[in-house]
């Protein structure tokens, strides 16, 4: 089995008047684990089903391994898939579920049993092979569905929100297992999810979709640290990036409600901008920092999430120290200007600063 690159070009689909895929051009590199991420209704499942051949796009082409499969029925595309509700055949045992595709592929009984055994061992299903899906727990069904997909050793593995029906603990275990499986198998993997944690932990490459368009594609770290738009900034990270409204004045950025810092960006003077700052990049006890009032604090043991207000704007700060903060207390927030992302307030797109003075901190009032 070798991995195959997948390329979709100009893929469009509308259901009635709703556009779910708007002229998508995406390359999925061979052997890579790509996560297609986005809120519900962004077109990510439709994209996956179009690649699998379960959905016919209105326009555009799908290539798998260099071959145009746009008009190929799903059974001839060479994809394996794990469905959100697992779609295990209820009238077949676990081993028949896993072996069905192998039987159709014309493998003899001995080879089939060997492959089923392998998949079962890889996923710890050995004791369950004779059971029916109805006799399994959610997590076990999930494993069987994955076993069914990997036993075929296809070039392409597709996952449609496979972890969304599992509880949090199981989801975490399966994440690690899926990544391990991918590293062992090496097939081209496309994984659709709305959960940014899954995307961050699993992906080599993330494609973030919004309203049928690619909002940003890149490595998890690129999306985390250099979000292209405010949508990406708000979608990636738990808690997500803080977005504060501000104005660009001269060589400074003035945050509404207090505070400013020097930054030169390619924007008109007095233009409205948004600044984005990660909760963990904020220092909350800098004497020169800007005032913020604590509204609430969540103690998670390992760290605290503090909800504060600068004027009318909410700011989340994560803090791993031991000091507790109480409601009504005043914090002094500051952050390195390099940790800041600037966005156009209207288009939401990122504006690259052309000069930032390192080690400049937010303070009450900038020097003229």
């Amino acid at each position: 089995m070798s991995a195959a690159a997948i390329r979709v070009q100009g893929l469009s689909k509308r259901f009635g008047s709703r556009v779910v895929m708007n002229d998508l051009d995406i390359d999925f590199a061979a052997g890579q684990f790509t996560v297609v991420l986005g809120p519900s209704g962004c077109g990510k499942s439709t994209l996956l089903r179009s690649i699998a051949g379960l959905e016919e796009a209105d326009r555009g082409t799908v290539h798998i391994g260099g071959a145009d499969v746009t008009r190929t029925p799903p059974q001839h595309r060479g994809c394996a898939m794990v469905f959100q509700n697992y779609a295990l055949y209820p009238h077949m045992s676990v081993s028949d579920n896993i072996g069905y595709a192998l039987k159709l592929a014309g493998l003899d009984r001995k080879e089939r049993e060997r492959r089923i055994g392998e998949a079962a061992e890889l996923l710890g299903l050995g004791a369950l092979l004779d059971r029916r899906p109805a006799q399994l727990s959610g997590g076990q069904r999930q494993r069987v569905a994955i076993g069914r997909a990997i036993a075929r050793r296809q070039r392409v593995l597709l996952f449609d929100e496979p972890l969304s029906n599992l509880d949090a603990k199981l989801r975490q275990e399966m994440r690690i297992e899926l990544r391990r499986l991918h590293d062992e198998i090496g097939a081209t993997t496309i994984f659709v999810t709305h959960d940014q944690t899954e995307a961050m932990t699993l992906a080599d490459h993330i494609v973030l979709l919004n309203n049928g368009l690619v909002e940003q594609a890149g490595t998890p770290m690129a999306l985390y640290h250099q979000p292209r738009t405010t949508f990406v900034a708000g979608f990636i990270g738990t808690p997500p990036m803080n977005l504060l409204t501000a104005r660009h004045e001269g060589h400074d950025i003035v945050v509404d409600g207090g505070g400013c810092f020097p930054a030169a960006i390619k924007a008109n003077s007095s233009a409205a901008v948004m600044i984005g700052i990660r909760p963990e990049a904020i220092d909350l006890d800098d004497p020169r920092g800007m005032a913020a009032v604590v509204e609430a604090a969540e103690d998670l043991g390992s760290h605290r999430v503090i909800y504060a207000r600068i004027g009318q704007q909410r700011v989340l700060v994560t803090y791993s120290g031991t000091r507790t903060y109480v409601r009504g207390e005043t914090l002094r927030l500051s952050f390195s200007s390099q940790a800041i992302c600037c966005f156009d307030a209207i288009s939401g797109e990122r504006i690259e600063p052309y000069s930032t003075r390192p080690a400049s901190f937010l303070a009450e009032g900038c020097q003229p």
Partner: protein
Amino acid sequence: MKSSARFHGHWIPLALGLPQLVLIALFFYWPTLKAFWWSLHLVCPFGNCSTFVGLGNYTRELTDSSFYAALRTTALFAAFGVSLSIAVALFLAAMVELHRRTGGLFRYLLIWPYAVAGSVLGVILKVAASPSIGPLGYLNTLWPGFWQPYLNGTQSMLMVVFAFAWTQIPFNFIVFVAALRAIPAEYLAAAAIDGADPVRRFIDIQLPMLKPQLFFVATINLIESFTNSFAIVDTMTQGGPGRATNILAYKIYTDGFIGLDLSGSSALSMMLMLLVFAACFVQFFVFERRARQEG
């Protein structure tokens, strides 16, 4: 499911159910009891006198070779009639389901025949199968003497089996289409991904999931072939030629109303009822239970 309305006391529900209960009692239970009573007596041809004979009527029928001939004909008719009804309805339902988008129109077209009255259908089929004027009569222009449903026992059986299937197919079709629609599309998608073409998907996924409906429809068709087949045989062949299509239901009628052997035909109808009960019993206690366990 919770019942949405609740009655206090027993009188209102009983009163509401009364018309139906009276009808059933008058036209089903009473005649059944009457037939049972007759089957234990030797009754005069016009029912005005009777002598108790115990199981005499039953032993008389059970030692009569014409009873076994009618039983054989019934079994043959039921076997071919039911399998044809199911096979054709299943094929049509699968075809409609394969094209869910365009299938809608054909679904309605194929359900329509269900609304045609039985006697109208009998006349239509009688004309259609007529050796001299119907479309099948054309066969006799090509090969003179080939299509003779009123002389050739096999052909007349073929004709009534076809007519019977025609009456059952729309009902079966409705049940199968509804059942196929209820199968989650994900299973078929998974099978397609697993490499199954539409035919394999039907055989490996849809058909096993249709099992409860298949058993249900088979039972209904079987009961119909025991009882409602009377009208078809009566309009088309009157049990002939010879006794080639003389099924049990028709024999009961001819023995009772033409042969005026009311006792014997009552005993026969009791035995036919036992067959129907047996079919129901198998459906409810064997197939249904198994289907529930598997689901």
